[in-house]
């Protein structure tokens, strides 16, 4: 297992180089660079001399391979560059925002698990009865509503009408996290509930469940002790996909709730061609991709005896 983990971690190196090189090349295919975007955003006219001077200052006058090699060389020294737009060190910008993204990821995932597992099981156990239909309709509605709509609806109801939470939630302690978490959890729970229902229904048909019932094992024990355990593979797969996506940030939720995470930072960087910020985000996404997949594989190894047996043989 140790060797496997090390091997997977070493794969991160070529992935990082590959993805950052590809991103770098793609970014530079546009004829509009960060300086052009800065000029456009101001609505003024800059002379070519002014733009050339800024490009020289930012290193944008050099060829793409030279710019990339400079970036790699600096990255290996721990210097990810400075933002073309704000002038701040990119790594510092990113690390300032990352805890907020992680915080939102954790709360969203926990709420999703807390909602979707009981609802999924309940829906499966009460199949084709009122409870099942009700949960499935909720799931359908939750899946259909776009994230920005859910966010604004929650803000309208809970902040504006009921006054339970502030509209401008950032920096308001625990109140800041509730609505963003709900927004993300509603969409994810809607999806998870259906998946868990389907998996549980599949498991409930299996011989070991029939056998357990025949032996007089209580239904709750069958569900929690056996069926849920068997469904964990599905749940872990869904979780790994969602965690990976959430750790990349959610620009819309961050924008609406003024949540200072990495998602909005990334989208703004793309719109303004802020290449150093885009690169650090791409590095982060590559790390997430490798780490989340690795952790998922490790969990599979411990959850599924068949995988352990296969490895041994």
């Amino acid at each position, binding site marked *: 297992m140790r060797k496997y983990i090390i091997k997977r971690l070493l794969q991160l190196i070529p992935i990082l180089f590959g993805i950052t090189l590809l991103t770098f090349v793609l970014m530079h295919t546009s004829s509009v660079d960060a300086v052009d975007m800065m000029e456009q955003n101001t*609505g003024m006219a800059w002379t070519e001399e002014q733009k050339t001077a800024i490009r020289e200052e930012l290193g944008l006058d050099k060829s793409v391979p030279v710019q990339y090699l400079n970036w790699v060389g600096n990255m290996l020294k721990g210097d990810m560059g400075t933002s073309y737009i704000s002038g701040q060190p990119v790594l510092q910008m990113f690390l300032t925002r990352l805890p907020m993204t992680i915080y939102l990821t954790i709360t969203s995932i926990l709420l999703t698990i807390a909602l979707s597992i009981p609802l999924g099981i309940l829906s499966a156990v009460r199949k084709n009865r009122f409870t099942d239909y009700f949960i499935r309709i909720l799931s359908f509605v939750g899946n259909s509503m776009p994230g920005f709509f859910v966010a604004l609806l929650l803000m309208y109801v809970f902040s504006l009408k009921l006054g339970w939470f502030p509209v401008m939630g950032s920096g308001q302690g625990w109140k800041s996290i509730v609505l963003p978490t709900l927004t993300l959890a509603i969409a994810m729970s809607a999806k998870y509930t259906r998946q868990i229902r389907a998996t549980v229904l599949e498991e409930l048909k299996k011989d070991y469940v029939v056998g357990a019932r025949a032996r007089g094992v209580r239904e709750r024990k069958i569900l929690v002790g056996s069926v849920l355990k068997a469904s964990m593979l599905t749940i872990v797969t869904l979780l790994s996909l969602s965690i990976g996506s959430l750790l990349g940030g959610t620009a819309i939720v961050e924008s609406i709730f003024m949540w200072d995470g990495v998602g909005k930072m990334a989208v*703004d960087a793309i719109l303004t061609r802020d290449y150093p910020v885009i690169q650090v985000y791409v590095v982060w996404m590559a790390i997430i991709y490798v780490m989340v997949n690795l952790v998922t594989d490790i969990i599979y190894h411990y959850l599924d005896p068949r995988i352990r047996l296969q490895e041994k043989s």
Partner: protein
Amino acid sequence: MAHKKIAKLGTVFMAAVLMFGLLAGCGDNKDQNGGSAKAETASEKVFTFGDTTFNAENDESDVNPHRGYSGWACIRYGIGETLFKYSDSMELEPWLAKSYENIDDNTWKITLQDNVTFSSGRKMDAQAVKECLDDLVAVHERAAGDLKISNIDADGQILTITTSEPVPALMNYLSDPYGCIIDMEAGITADGKVVGTGPYIVKELETDKGVTLVKNDNYWNGSPHLDTIYVKTITDGDTMTMAMQSGELDAAYGLPYASLPLFKNEPYTISSCETSRSFFAQMNYATEALQDDDVRAAIASAIDKENFTSVLMDGNGTAAVGPFPASFTFGDNAVTAESYDPAKAKELLKKAGWTDTDGDGYVDKNGKKLTIRWLTYPSRQELPLLAESVQATMKDVGIDIQVNCTANHQDYLDKGDWDIFAGAFVSAPTGDPEYFFTTHCLDSSTKNRGGYHSDALEALEKQMSVTFDSSERATLGTQMTQTILDDHAFVFASHLKMSMVSGKGVSGLVAHPSDYYEITADLDKE
């Protein structure tokens, strides 16, 4: 056994995560509102202002006027002031300076006010202003290019500026937000805080998040009414709207058009005015059809500006004639252009040889349909709307408009793959007419994308470049505007109306055509 171990570890991990989540949330109770959770006293007047612009994307990362466009934040938030300011008709009036005198083509004498102090307590004299302007031209590329200052002498309250070449609009440029006078002795902090002469002092700032201001008790020009102002950067229009409705914001700048009707009635007030940000189209003279003045005139006559501004922009713009709004002395009231007249447009096309011979609804000539590639971009919400409006009205006169609305418009401009380019531009940021023509209309202009040339315009610009009297410059500006309108090289659709919404009990927040003055000593809240 291994599984039990994993289960235990997993339980401990989940518990730790929950604890972290709760503690992190509980700890995040500071800094957005001035760095502490200290309760405000009942007698303190606190004001919260929502703004869309204080962010790095707008090149406003801090309030240091010597950096990028941060001067806009400095002046808008009442931190800094310039030597002169603009009146409602964009003419210069005294501010930190009493008067100026143009000694010769390259020399200006400015007399400063006697009673101004920086919020640091230092008296503002010519030496302090010299230090500030020396630093400005040393570090700010755009300012150095505009001002062309070669030397500054300071003597008491008299400042003498020498330029390397004639700069007739020097006083206008010095009134640009980058000209905010700051105390260089007090310095500029690492995060971009500065000491100015304005009614408010910056206490805290965070790029992309906002600024905390406190009253300047030593303000030289009145008594600020508010003790603390929190400026919050809010990028989402709906969030800002709901924050205004909930009362969390006392005022807001940059609300989306669709939200403004919610604040039309009491207790809200809306202050709006035309600005010099104009939406306009420029013709590509490389396109064969557009080389005919009758075709260009027909296009100009087929754009329904009134419908565009009153319906599509919901009244948040005014129909334009030229590049400058009517409030400017050289603005729309002084010039004439084609008005919306589809019948005239059809006549002009017919005169140019374009008629619908094949009955498809579009005019053609020598077997070729008149198709115009309309290039624009989406980052200004008005531009796609203008394109759609034009496409509809042009169809009525028989012109086929193919709209290309793309963020990569520069690609198409570079390749010449366009016939008409529509964009937005602040045509007179310093209240001087020359800027628009030097940037868009002359042979040497960087934004003369269509290759427009006019001998008359070049001659007028030569005159303008050596004319120092502001009323003469206004007259020349009017003539230059009329020249480009008569040539139908540009069609100006509308001028943007900027609006600020004030909540209950708020007074003193008044929109200005320059868009520079927001938080002033007059701002108050009951």
